[in-house]
């Protein structure tokens, strides 16, 4: 069965990523967009595009009925959900199945089993995969939360049962903080996933966050594509990922890969998925949750395995067998991804939406930029502030870091604040270079161990002073000329003369 037309039920860079795969496979792509997104890059890149409602995602990107309606009207026979939004929504997968539309992801029942976080924990326990101690069921009432919390002990993590991407997730250091945290987590979970149930886990101290990418077809074949190190986070959201992890031993890597494949086979999983683990300081892995979808950081795996995960997803959705076996998968070299967010790292990573006044994107050997924006684009306030993913590959970790540092220095985003200056500092940070960090890196070690380098401030002063000088001269020139002829820029005069000269 070959898919004829794929609708992408998402926006931003991931929609662009899927459109690229479609185009490479010769499959027409359909974008959907909210009223705020008419000028988003995915709309401009797709073969077809249809509006599905107002800016808030609840009224657009989360509206299954409207998305399915567009699919039927335009003749799309498959839907790729990307990540976030409806990607882990079992009801949506089921609605697609019922409408005779291929959902490019696992079956609805698997999403239900693995997507609901406490049920995934129960299945993992049955499959012999170690989990973090905590509740094995969602807890509903405040009374029950209090009771379970005192049983597990503080500090603990409060998580949205339907969650992902750091939304609806709170670290609760003490009993006093519980009520506020529950409030906040519930409200975030409700708005992000339409479901406000939560569960509790003991907080693992100084953990590494390492995940295993898996891929499975509908014929019972499942493989893992090695790990991604995702320890560097802010607000429980990843900002830098790499593969291989500098922390794993070959034995632990093999063990975690086998655990992942065992779990995937137990639930009859189909398509791409990721098993997230916490690894404590004694290198003990604990299964955290499974993401039954493509991950933001999938390019890191693509760079070291030389595989195209989105194309593999589409092939598997077409009913094809995986074209490779476990023995064929090689982890070659080292890849690092930096998530470029429209956020101000100097002000606690506050969102910084607005117009991108000017943009320069890096290139050259081993550099990949998966972007969802362009020069002149207005980054809207309604959605996730990630604008791009910058990925660098090198033969060794050192090579990859050198390339990333070089690529970050070429990357220019004017008009909004981004996390790029933060990455420049991380790529020089002694703890990062040594591969020695845990999930508290951004908040603690980063500032404590940073080697501060003096910025070339006199260059900045010279540039700014000259520009100000030129601006003032231009303004005065314009004023003195305004009585006579209109001001003409040097460039235009030269262009006109050369043009005339060529013709005459």
């Amino acid at each position, binding site marked *: 069965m070959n898919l004829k037309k794929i609708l992408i039920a998402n926006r931003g860079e991931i929609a662009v990523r899927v459109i690229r795969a479609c185009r490479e496979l010769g499959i027409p792509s359909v974008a959907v967009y909210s009223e705020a997104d008419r000028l988003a890059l995915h709309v401009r890149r797709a073969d077809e595009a249809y509006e599905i409602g107002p800016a808030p995602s609840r009224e657009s990107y989360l509206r299954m009925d409207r998305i399915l309606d567009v699919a039927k009207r335009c003749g799309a026979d498959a839907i790729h959900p990307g990540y976030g939004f409806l990607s882990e929504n079992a009801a949506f997968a089921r609605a697609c199945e019922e409408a005779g539309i291929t959902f490019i992801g696992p079956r609805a029942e698997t999403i239900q089993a693995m997507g609901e976080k406490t049920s995934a924990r129960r299945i993992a326990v049955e499959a012999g995969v170690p989990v973090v101690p905590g509740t094995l069921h969602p807890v509903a009432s405040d009374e029950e939360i209090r009771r379970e919390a005192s049983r597990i002990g503080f500090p603990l993590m409060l998580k949205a049962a339907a969650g992902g991407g750091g939304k609806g997730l709170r670290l609760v250091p003490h009993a006093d903080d519980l009520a506020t945290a529950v409030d906040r987590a519930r*409200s975030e979970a409700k708005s992000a996933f339409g479901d406000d149930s939560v569960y509790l886990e003991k907080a693992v101290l100084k953990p590494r966050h390492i995940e295993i990418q898996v891929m499975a077809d509908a014929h019972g074949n499942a493989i893992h594509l090695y790990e991604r190190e995702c320890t560097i986070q802010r607000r429980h959201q990843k900002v830098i990922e790499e593969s291989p992890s500098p922390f794993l031993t070959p034995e632990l890597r093999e063990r975690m890969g086998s655990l992942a494949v065992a779990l995937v086979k137990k639930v009859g999983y189909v398509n791409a998925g990721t098993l997230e683990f916490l690894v404590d300081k004694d290198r003990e892995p604990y299964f955290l949750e499974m993401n039954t979808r493509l991950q933001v950081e999938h390019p890191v795996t693509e760079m070291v395995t030389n595989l195209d995960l989105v194309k593999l997803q589409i092939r598997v959705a077409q009913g094809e067998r995986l074209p490779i076996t476990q023995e064929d998968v090689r982890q070659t070299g080292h890849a690092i991804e930096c998530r470029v967010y429209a956020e101000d790292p100097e002000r606690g990573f506050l969102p910084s939406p607005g117009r991108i006044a000017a943009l320069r994107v890096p290139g050259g050997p081993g550099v990949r930029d998966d972007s969802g924006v362009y020069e002149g684009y207005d980054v809207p306030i309604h959605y996730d502030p990630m604008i791009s993913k910058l990925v660098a590959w090198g033969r060794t970790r050192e090579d990859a870091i050198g390339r990333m540092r070089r690529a970050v220095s070429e990357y220019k985003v004017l008009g909004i604040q981004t996390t790029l200056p933060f990455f420049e500092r991380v790529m020089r940070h002694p703890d990062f270079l040594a591969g020695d960090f845990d999930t508290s890196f951004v908040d603690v070690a980063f500032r404590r161990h940073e080697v501060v380098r003096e*910025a070339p401030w*006199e260059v*900045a*002063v010279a540039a*700014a*002073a000259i520009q100000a000088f030129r601006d003032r001269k231009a303004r005065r020139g314009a004023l003195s000329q305004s009585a006579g002829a209109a001001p003409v820029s040097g460039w235009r005069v030269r262009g006109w003369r050369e043009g005339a000269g060529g013709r005459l």
Partner: protein
Amino acid sequence: MIFDVSVQGRTVKAEVKATTADSYTVVIDGRPHVVDFRETGRDFASLLLDGRSFEAGLERREDGFVVHLPADNIAVVLQEAARGSAAAHKKASGPSRVTAPMPGKVVRLLVEAGQEVAAGAGLLVMEAMKMENELRAPRAGRVQSVAAREGLAVETGALLVVIE
């Protein structure tokens, strides 16, 4: 043309003299630099400063520029020296105005007018880009007024709460 400049906590004087159309001498705190400056696109310039090559992004701000250099974004505040250096010092005392640090939506109010608050106490919760952020009191005091309303969409700098 002489500028009073503040950059990264320093205050310096910078004098710009044009030698040819694209060549300048910039004297920064008495030290002269020869600079060849060419625009390389909207908001970008290539600088050869004493022979060293820099590609600079020049982001205009009300009071100067943010200069994007390969590894640093540097805010440069400058004012023409001839125009008098009336760098008006803001009053340090008086009521504290808590304004929106980003565009977003006011989700919940946690205080009301007349209430006493401690420094760091939560004032309200704002949502922007799918994250909820609690805005806290910059100092202890009494809430003089609450301009924010729940559900209200606000722009950066919008007045939310005044503490006296």
